[in-house]
């Protein structure tokens, strides 16, 4: 399946990825090739097949709703790009 250049820009935007305009054509070609590869699946009849989410068909394990983790905020924020008063800073979102 071939993508057009606007679809590539839309997918990049959806993925929150800045892509140089000069590279759009290359992405268009490579992503289209990958989609051609995966389109082989459409020929397979899977109408009676249950999708497989876990190789051992395991179900989600549950645990008691109790506190198990300590608060390590200061430790984790040491590697953050920008923090203030225990918060992560980003450019202003609400004017």
């Amino acid at each position, binding site marked *: 399946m071939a*993508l057009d250049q606007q679809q*590539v820009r839309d*997918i*990049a*935007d*959806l*993925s*929150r*990825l*800045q*892509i140089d305009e000069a590279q759009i054509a290359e*992405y268009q070609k*490579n*992503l289209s*090739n*990958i*989609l*051609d*590869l*995966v*389109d*082989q*699946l*459409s020929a*397979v009849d*899977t109408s009676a*097949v*249950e*999708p*497989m*989410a*876990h*190789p*051992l068909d*395991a179900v*989600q*394990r549950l*645990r008691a709703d109790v506190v198990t983790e300590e608060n*390590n905020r200061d*430790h*984790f924020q*040491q*590697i*953050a*790009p*920008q923090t203030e008063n225990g918060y*992560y800073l*980003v*450019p*202003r*979102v609400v004017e």
Partner: protein
Amino acid sequence: MHNKTIADISRDLAAGEYSSVEITENLLTRIKNTDAHYNSFITVSEEQALAQAKAADARRAAGNADAWTGIPMAHKDIFCTNGVLTTCGSKMLSNFIAPYDATIVENFNNAGAVSLGKLNMDEFAMGSSNESSFYGAVKNPWDGERVPGGSSGGSAAAVAAQLVPGATASDTGGSIRQPAAFCGLTGLKPTYGRVSRWGMIAYASSLDQAGTITRTAEDSAMMLNVMAGFDAKDSTCVDREVPDYTATLNNSIAGLTIGLPKEYFRSDLSADMQQQVRNAIAEYEKMGAKVKEISLPNTHLAIPAYYIIAPAECSANLSRMDGVRFGYRCENPQDINDLYKRSRGEGFGIEVKRRIMVGAYALSAGFYDAYYKKAQQVRRLIRNDFVNAFNEVDIIMGPTTPTPAFKRGEKTADPVDMYLEDIFTIALNLAGLPGMSISCGQVNNLPVGLQLIGNYFDEGRLLNAAHQFQQHTDWHLKTPDLKNQADI
């Protein structure tokens, strides 16, 4: 000291032949002198390694040593190591000092192992050649113009170059077995859920599994003994007893039934590759194994199914790399969207961006049934092929890769060319089965890998079969000519 196996070192340390500090210093010096050529390490943690080695020697002096006390090794840079740079081969994490240890790292630390550092890899484990690393390509010690395989290329090159006796690695579609095959080594990818994924940076969570690259099956068994086991911190880890994998290595394999999938011996697999694999099978027959042709009819669907499931899962997993809490952030973001888009656009390499985009597309509204659900259905068909096969045979064997190690740049123009490299390895991850690659011959002086596929949780039998092969042949003892390369 550098050509010793993990088992050798364990015996030597116990016998007092040398201390952990001595072998650690020896290997650190060797890394310093030669790794500029191979580029297998991203980080060498000299200080921590020497501290761990001293502690190990003290533990031994106090009479508290066991099998792993003081043994040097290294971790793929996908595993978080507390206080040590953990990059996953990406600019995105080029400043990420992990604030905690992965469970398997903790396991090795508790066992008394000495970590020499962190090993190079394809960016976020996406690649089959170690060419997508932000830290540069890794050279194959057998031929410096060739790739070591990927994504665990640094793990394989470091062991083949005799910088470490063994390394951790991870395998989502072949990332342990293919580099092990390309570098003449033993690679083990355990059953999905056998080893904790906690602290292993996620690529495709339903496929990722941690494992080992070593010279021998015996060493793989020793490493798996440390790594395997239940971990409440990984919700998909399986709570099941862990046997001593070294205890069954010497079992007889007489009567073992080996299945040979006809789809793995395709007409386009070169005669040379076929011959090496057939020779290995003949060796097994000499040891009393029986051979049976089987069919895995959905083999050709494994790569297409993988390239929906893995990108879809990676697009979700890598959304956490957003320039807010850790990792790379772009300069002077204008607004929040600019911060996300430029941090990710500048921080990720091209292959990672491609896979995120394929995944985002496959999961987008209106396409979910046609892509992700369809791939999960095909995945069950692929698993059913193996379930049926294991009703008839004990173990499945075939080539690990279609060719020996290829040259750098040979498969980078079209990503699909690179994807097809994993044709024999990828189905196991979709099925969640354990697999190994052991060196079984050479073509044009390059190693050829024999792949062994086991039933769920049958790592003991895989390691036993691999060990018996290595007791009867010497392919695993062959090493590249390192002298010429270290001088470069």
